[in-house]
């Protein structure tokens, strides 16, 4: 009985909407509704795969995700290792308090702060103007958009993401350090031979998870930071579905693209979990 509201919620809001997936195979006409709209088979998918836009979307999504993985993934690990070396507690706590904070801001607000710094009339341009130099356009510039996405994401989340590693660090048996010290290992060698192996399961798990969510390139962030000028390098599957579906009311195509993404994402996450379980680490479920 107690479970009823939860189950009803999931059935109504997570399972019932699947009937709407039918839109992907229909030529949806609002006045006819979902059931009465004519079936068109795979036509929406054919439109998707043959459009010039599609390879671009896929490339943008995967590339931005990969950049995040390559440049963003190590940062919280390094940050946690650095924090772990600090012996002055008030210093450590201050650093943590400040660097965790942006995690709790929405991308709208954090994006506002980003534009406050780099926008057309942001402080960088105000400074350049004072120095008599020409203004730079960082906010709407296809050449810098992807680095901008990766760097701002790192700045917002590196502190918070380090927590999970800090937690893993506390689980390392201090005797291992003792043993390493007795063997004359320097602090750096201790990190290499004791600390890193100690948190390796956590690193592996989070790496696989992030790899499996490669089609999530940061919907909210990119929606906030992008503009038509950078669509060529910054338009990802999610932003496209939103724009084409809700703003241009091309429901069939948007549903098809969304379904394509959903299916691949589900396969990836299930594979990832299977893999994590096989390697003997804790699985996700």
């Amino acid at each position, binding site marked *: *009985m*107690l*479970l009823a509201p*939860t*189950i009803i*919620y*999931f059935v109504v*809001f*997570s399972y*019932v*909407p699947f009937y*709407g*997936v039918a*839109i992907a195979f229909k030529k949806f006409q609002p006045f006819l509704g979902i059931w009465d709209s004519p079936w068109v088979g795979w036509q929406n998918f054919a439109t998707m795969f043959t459009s010039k836009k599609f390879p671009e979307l896929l490339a943008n999504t995967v590339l931005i995700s990969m950049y995040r993985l390559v440049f963003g993934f190590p940062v919280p690990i390094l*940050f946690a290792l*650095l*924090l772990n*070396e*600090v012996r002055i507690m008030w*210093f450590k706590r*201050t*650093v943590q308090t*400040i660097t965790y904070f942006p995690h*709790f801001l*929405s991308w*709208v*607000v954090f*994006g*506002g702060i980003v*534009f*406050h*710094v780099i926008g057309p*009339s942001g*402080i960088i341009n105000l400074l350049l103007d*004072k120095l008599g130099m020409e203004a730079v356009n960082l906010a709407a510039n296809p050449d810098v958009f992807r680095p901008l996405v990766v760097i701002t994401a790192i*700045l917002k989340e590196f*502190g918070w993401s380090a*927590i*999970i590693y800090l*937690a893993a660090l506390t689980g390392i048996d*201090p005797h291992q*350090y*003792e043993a390493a*010290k*007795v063997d*004359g290992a*320097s*602090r750096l060698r201790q990190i290499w031979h004791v600390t890193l192996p100690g948190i390796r399961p956590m690193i592996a798990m989070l790496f696989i998870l992030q790899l499996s969510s490669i089609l999530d390139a940061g919907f909210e962030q990119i929606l906030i930071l992008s503009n038509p000028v950078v669509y060529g390098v910054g338009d990802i599957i999610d932003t496209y579905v939103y724009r084409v*579906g*809700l703003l241009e009311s091309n*429901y069939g195509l948007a*549903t098809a693209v*969304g*379904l394509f*993404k*959903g299916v691949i*994402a*589900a396969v990836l996450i299930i594979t990832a979990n299977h893999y994590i379980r096989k390697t003997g680490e*804790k699985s996700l*479920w």
Partner: protein
Amino acid sequence: MVMPSGHPQPGTGQVQGENELELINRGNRLDRNPLWAQSLIHLVLIVLTLITLLPILNVVAMSFSEAHAIYSNPLMIIPEQFTLEAYNYIFATPILLRSFMVTAFATVVGTSFNLFVTIMGAYALSKTALPGGRFLLWVCIFPMMFGPGLIPMYMLFKEIKLLDSIWVLVVSGLVVPFYLILMRNFFWSIPDELEEAMRIDGASDMGILWKMVIPLSKPAIATVGLFYAVGHWNDFFTGLFFINDNTKWPLQVLLRSIIIDMNALNMRGVGTAISQDSNKIMLTPENIKAATIVFAVTPIVLVYPFLQKYFVKGIMLGSVKG
């Protein structure tokens, strides 16, 4: 035991024969890095902290400063030529206050509903005797992996007349599977004996949940409640996707219009609040945007001490889940 090689540490030769306590104390002494390394570590951390902190301080300072001070010193971190004009302006803007009320409603009412449903569900799922428990758990977890996508959700809300209703902010995301599992794992840690004792005394499931489980689970409930509340406060997508009527926009959607789309001075459909044109010179879009950011962040700052405490706890709970 392998003999030290490379960099012999002072005293390592005498380790044998000392008792364990001394060894650990020595360990702590040896634990330190060389001074230069320690300094470098602190320096890097200070730089990272300042990169995070200074832009925020700059926004705060600008929100309290006069327009020409912003241009003469863009790098300020304390207000110059202090003024509250920007705040007078944004508080005189009815649409901002309206959006604030919408979001406050979603946060308070939404979080209550979230907690109510999540606690009951998690308690039921924590009972190993629950018939079909494994299947029901799957029903709750599956949506984490595979969803129907944006358009079918839109169609559903359209059909049940929740589009353009502020209730969509409450209903959408009523139970987050991850928090449900978090809560269930916490309930698991409560000893069964306590429950059995109450059951013998004739307490019902609801009675046990209300009188024992909830009081014992306050930290977990606070954690999950804060997760939900911050989620509602920062929720941008639900409003963006499902609410077109800008008088019902939650705060984050309006903020995008003000801060990102730079509709600062002509806040769309507002009937601008600046009556005294002479004051206009004191304000620039930068002031107003800065003040709006500060306005939106203030509630987060106010609960931040709790957030830090409980969110860290939540992460720990999450990372030890079975």
